[in-house]
Structures are given as C-alpha cells and as structure tokens.
C-alpha cells in the first residue's frame, strides 16, 4: 500500500509535459489527454537507411507475424507473444496523504460543543445524553487541479431585454484555476465535501498516512481515463460558475453554453483527513463529519425536539385564535 503510494508520487515527479499544451503526460500515455498530441518518443529509433528485415522469435528463431486472434505479434511455432507499447489505463493511486492535525479528543470535544450550540429547537438533553458510537478517522480522496482555460461562452440574460425578457450575450474569458478540488470520495456526500474543502493545507502531503490510528483509507475507485473525464466535467462546471459570477451581464441567466480550451492542466491525487462520527440519541443514529486539519469545519445532522416544536406550534395557533377573537369582539 505505502509502497505503491510512494511509487505514484515518484511517477508524478519524472513526468514530461505535452509539447503543445503544457499538460503533464503520465506514464503510459501515448498521446496528450487534452490536446491529442502524440507523446515524444523516449528512445530514438529513426532509421537513416533503407533496411529490409525479418523479425525473428527470440525463443525459436522462426519469423514473427501479427496475429489478430492474439491481437499481438506472435511466433507461429512456439506461441510466444511480442509485447508492444500500448495505452495504459491504470487505477488511480493517491499521490500523498495530508496529515491529521486535529486529535480524536479534540474532535469529540468539538462534537459536544456543536451539539450544545445548535439552538433552542433541539432536545434539551442532546449534548448530555448523545453518545459517540464511533469515531473513525478517514482519508478521503480527491483530485486537485491547476489549469489555464480560455473559455468562450454564450447565454441568454435579462440584461438588455427588449420585448422579450431575454437577450443573447456572448464573450470570452481567460480563467486560471488554482488548487481546485474535485471529490472522488464515495463515502462523503457532495455537501460534506463542500464544507470540508477549504480547511486543508496542501503542503502537508506525506507519502504515508500520518497522525491517526486505525484510519479508513479510501481508494480512488476509477481508472485513469474515467478520472480524466470526471476532472474535465468538474472543470466545465467550475467554468460555468465563474462565467455566471463574473462574466455575463444581468442577474438572471438561461441556456448558458461554455466551450473550453485547456492548457497546463496539472492534476494531483490526494487523500484528505477527516473524522466521521456516528452518535446515538434515543436509539437513533446521527452522523457528523469534522475536518482533520480544521475542527471548525463540520457538517452533520442532529435531531429536533418534537415536543418543543409542537409546543411552539400550539402557542402560535393559540395566539392567532386569541387575535381573531379580539377582532370579532371589537367588530
């Protein structure tokens, strides 16, 4: 496990960049995934004079020919197969683990503090009787990317509308993406990731998990080609948000289309620390997620006190009834 992680980190270091768009090529890439340019040849096998040759099997000396059944060049006598460099599509591996800086005790204390700070509608005995069922340190996985994008967009907005409420607009923008995080986690919800994402220091990445015992270590569950699709999708979504925030005039939009030309897309695969806490209140299980580097970032659910809500509802109804009564009396 730790071995493959340090391996992955090593691969990240000796990459070459695409000559056309600056995006780092990864081991086994035959072409750039962004602009399609072929990877430069490592070994120089250019011929300078015309040669005629027969490829021979290193095992038995018979001629080697391509066989569609094996989909590889093979020797028809001894059945050995010649390996050809093909496109590799390995499973994604994390490139490093960010360290835990929040201890388990601090996380537990944070839970109690959070429970008592929730407000009046929660049960009064919540923080006193809620029992931490399980506190599990977790490394969840995400891609972090940097990229330069030239974005062209077109949309309808309410700005400049004449008879119709909508008017067409178009434009271009240069957008720089810096340390954008796209979750690959199966265990955390999108809402939880959004809360946690801002509380990490990316420079604390280590080759091995550090700072927590018995942690759950999430894996990237996707192959490289699928990962690239997900990153591209996240970039597209980010570009849409940026364009809506700062490019389109007006306040209401529809039919927004964006088209991106990406350059220098650098993707890192990292594991982020968090605590997942399950706590029980009156037999019911609730869940809270706390950032592993910033305990104030948390996301969870908690019970409401039904008795208190009913009491308030009754009080409101009673008040309304009383007012109505007053009105009818005065009339």
């Amino acid at each position, binding site marked *: 496990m730790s071995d493959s992680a340090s391996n992955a980190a090593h691969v990240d270091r000796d990459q070459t960049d695409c000559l056309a768009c600056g995006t780092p090529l990864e081991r086994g890439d035959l072409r750039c995934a962004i602009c*399609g*340019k072929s990877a430069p040849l490592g070994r120089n096998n250019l011929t300078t004079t*015309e040669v005629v040759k027969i490829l021979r099997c290193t095992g038995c000396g018979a001629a080697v020919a*391509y066989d569609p059944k094996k989909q590889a060049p093979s020797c028809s006598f001894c059945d050995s197969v010649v390996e*050809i460099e*093909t496109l590799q599509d390995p499973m994604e591996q994390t490139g490093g683990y960010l360290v835990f800086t929040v201890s388990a005790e601090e996380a537990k204390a944070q839970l109690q503090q959070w429970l008592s700070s929730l407000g009046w509608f929660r049960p009064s005995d919540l923080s006193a009787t809620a029992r931490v069922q399980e506190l599990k340190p977790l490394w969840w996985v995400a891609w972090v990317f940097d990229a330069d994008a030239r974005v062209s967009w*077109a949309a309808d907005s309410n700005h400049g509308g004449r*008879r119709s409420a909508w008017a*067409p607009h178009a434009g271009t923008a240069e957008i720089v993406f810096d340390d954008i995080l796209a979750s690959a986690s199966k265990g955390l919800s999108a809402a939880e990731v959004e809360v946690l994402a801002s509380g990490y220091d990316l420079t604390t990445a280590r080759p091995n998990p550090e700072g927590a015992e018995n942690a759950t270590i999430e894996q990237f569950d996707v192959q490289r080609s699928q990962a690239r699709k997900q990153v591209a999708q996240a970039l597209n979504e980010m570009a849409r948000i940026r364009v809506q925030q700062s490019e389109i005039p007006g306040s209401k939009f529809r039919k927004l*289309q964006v088209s991106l030309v990406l350059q220098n897309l650098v993707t890192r695969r990292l594991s982020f620390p968090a605590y997942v806490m399950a706590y029980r209140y009156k037999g019911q299980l609730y869940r809270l997620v706390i950032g592993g580097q910033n305990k104030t970032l948390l996301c969870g659910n908690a019970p409401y006190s039904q008795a208190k809500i009913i009491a308030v509802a009754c009080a409101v109804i009673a008040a309304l009834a009383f007012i109505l009564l007053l009105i009818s009396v005065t009339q």
Partner: protein
Amino acid sequence: MTADTIEKKIDYKEISCQSCGSNLLVEPQMLTAICPYCASPSIIQRPPSEDLPTPAFTIGFVVTQDRAIEAVSSWIGRSSVFAKSAFRKAAPELTRGVYLPAYLYNAVANSDYRAEIGENYTETETYTTTDSDGKTVTKTRTVIKTEWRSLQGEHCCYILDVVVTASKGVTNEALEAVEPFDLRALRRFSPAMISGWLAEEPSRTQDECFRFAHGEAVDKVGSQLKGFMPGDSYRNLQYETDVANESIDLVLFPIWTFAVRYDETKPPLQILVNGQTGRVGGKVPISPVKVSIAVAVVVFILLVGALLFGMAR
C-alpha cells in the same frame, strides 16, 4: 515500348528475402513483403521524409479474415432492393487485409460567428370572430412571437481525433464509411505489428491530407456551434474558423478490402471492412432498370386510381 511504359507506371523496388535469398519485386508504397518462395514476412524500413513520415501509431487487426468475409456477404445480402441483381449475386473477392496509412489530426479551433438569435415573448392580442349565435364578438388570446437579435461572438474548442486517409487507394469518403475506430486501442508503431500483413506508406501528400482534415474540423465546429447558440431559435448562422496548434500523426489502420466484380465492362466495386470493429462500407450500384420499373409501376397505379376516381364521379 510497352515494357517501357509499364516500368514507368509502377516503379517496383527490388529487395532480397532475408530468409531464402530470392529477389522480390515490391510495389513502391509497401512497407512489408511476403516471400512467395519461403513465405517469410519481410519488413521494409525507410528513412522518413517530408511526405513519408514514420508511422507513430497502429491499431492491430481484431477481425479475422473469415469474419470479414461473413460481414461482407451479409452486407451485400442486406443491400437495397434497387441494387443491381448482378451485384447482389456477385461473390465478393477478398483482395487483402492491409494496414492503411491515415493521419490523425488534432487542433485548436478559434471561430468568429454571427447569427440572429430568436427570443420568444408572449403578447395578448384581440381578435373578432363570430360565435355560435352568428354574432360578431371580440376576444383576446395570447400568442408567442419571436424577436430577432443579432449576436456576434467567438468560440474556441479543441478538435480531436479527426482521421483522414493518406492512401490514394482509398478516398476519404470511403474511409469515413467504415469509421469510427476505437482510438483507445492505439499502440505505438512497431515493425512487429505489421509483420506478415500488407502495409502501405502514405501515397497522398501531407498538404492534401491537411486540406481534408481542415474540412472535417470546420464541419465539426459547425455542428458544435449549433448547440452553442442561446435563445429559443437561431437563423443565418455564419462562422469563420482559424485553426492553431495543429498536430498530425501517421497511423496505420487495419482494413480488409474486397472487390466485387458484377459487370465485365466496369471496374470492380471496392468494399472496405473496418479491421477493428467489422463495420462494412461501400457504394451499392443502383440498377436504373429497377428504379424506372418501380417508378413506372407507381405512376401506373396512380393513373388507374385517378381514372377510377374520375369514373366514379
């Protein structure tokens, strides 16, 4: 004299078999040869030049000869009823499985476009009509109207994986008919991949192939722009595309070629089979006799129908 002209037409290359030493004559575009005496597969490697670059990638054959023959037979069987009878009966003649040279083209496309964008709005209008009692009444209704606004803008995108033929033996249309290839199966070119098979060098110039690729790239931009337009509708979409950062790689694609000779007086018809996916492509000859008979029958039925209809009145 005649021998002279033939020699000029095809400038055969002479190579000697590295296995049995016999001299072989090879067509100038071929990258491989199979010795007729000892069946040894030779590979010819030439230094790259401007119009003859070294192949960068190959896709290996997946479809075997038997499967290709099957695919072509069933394709001919399924061809249109208007196809010439001789064609439907003809037995396809397998000529060869060949690694066809083609260029894989990628570029950034920057386009300036202008169009009129239709934005719909509703309007209440009054109109007069006669009601069931025969009186004239005024009513209102809402109608959807379209306001046309002009829009001018830029569009930029990557154009990826355009494949264009580099062989004079196969037109770009014929290659398009058996596309797409699954480019995930691309392999780095290695002489071992084409050993034992026929493989060609490019016989079209790079300029010509670039022109094909430009054309396809501009078409791709056009179809992307259609989806890019805001508004409820659009008209008069015009665009001009500049391409930048072009890259072009020579790829050898696996193709089974068949010839169907259905008429002594005509050159045989070319049918291609995608050696990776088994997709069949070719132009089916339409029988003018069959088409005119069908037209005549339809006209006759219409005439008879009109006549009967006229008599009944």
